[in-house]
């Protein structure tokens, strides 16, 4: 468990330092994920400290968003200013983003399969 956290926190730390020193608008943790992914590809394997503890951790990722979710309190005043249009806008925009992404990907996968039959 200790080693697991050292791995993860170290990669986040490196990501934060790189993002800040280059002035990139990318969060350090996202850059850390990319760097860890490259490391795993180069090592051709997942070290034991990361293999055993992570899957259980990921199924509880929702827990970590509850504090941010409490921030929907701040949504109330805005909602009273636009009680109908704002919820409609957010639902329509989010659903259409999902649908467009899914359709483009399905089209791309279908096209790739046709060109390169398995």
């Amino acid at each position, binding site marked *: 468990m200790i080693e697991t956290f050292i791995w993860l926190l170290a990669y986040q730390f490196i990501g934060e330092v790189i993002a800040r020193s280059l002035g990139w608008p990318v969060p350090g943790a996202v850059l850390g994920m990319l760097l*860890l992914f490259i490391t795993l*590809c180069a090592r051709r394997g997942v070290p034991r400290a990361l293999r055993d503890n992570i899957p259980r951790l*990921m199924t509880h990722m929702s827990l970590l968003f509850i504090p941010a979710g409490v921030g929907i309190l701040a949504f109330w005043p805005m909602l009273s200013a636009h009680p109908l249009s704002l919820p409609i806008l957010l639902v329509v*925009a989010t659903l259409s*983003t999902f649908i467009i992404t899914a359709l483009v990907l399905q089209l791309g996968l279908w096209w790739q399969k046709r060109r390169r039959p398995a």
Partner: protein
Amino acid sequence: MSVLAWVQNAPLTGLLLTLAAYRAALALSRRYHGHPLANTVLMGAVMVIAVLLLLGMDFQQYMKGAGFIQFLLGPVTVALAIPLYNNLGRLRKSGLPILLAIIAGSAAGVVTAVCAGLLFDMPRSMVLSLAPRSATTPIAMGVAEVLGGIPALAATFVIVTGIIGAICAKPLMQLLRIQDDVVLGVATGVAAHGIGTARVFQLSETAGAFAGLAMGLTGLFTAILAPILVHYLML
């Protein structure tokens, strides 16, 4: 100091409250077989809000304890690299369509919000804060600031977008007859960033892995595309 004042100000309160609300939300979600509205983030947050109102606590007091939990988002985001690596074969095979879909989806996230905002005749600062709402919170706040929106407003839109996306992921999957976990993951990660990613991890590890990838890249492409798209849409 009275007991109530201690309860309101102790980090222990926010920490215990968040864990207990999550556990209760998880039980509700299992009881209703993962019904979309029994979303663990939404239910957990609503329960926390109810207790905060009851105890007369404000957000700052709550975050003294809940901040520890929020902090773990960083290392867990890094950990997304591991399920992604476990799906390396699929990533190699379908890398190009995935990348194209994420770029198209990032652009769609900005265009749909800005067009709908203009259509509803919303104030300019609100439309500009809505534009980056598909990205993760730190990116969306940065982009909103660059565009001339309000970062705090953008952060709220990001959260609400994530919860909507997380609730709708499974119904949309059934509606569109998506059978490929990769498609589910990428679409959820693009539309609903980390909250969507956390949701699909409850459904499938492969979907979670690709949602994590899509979340990271959507943040990147939103930061690049939003200023350009907004410039053309809001002349």
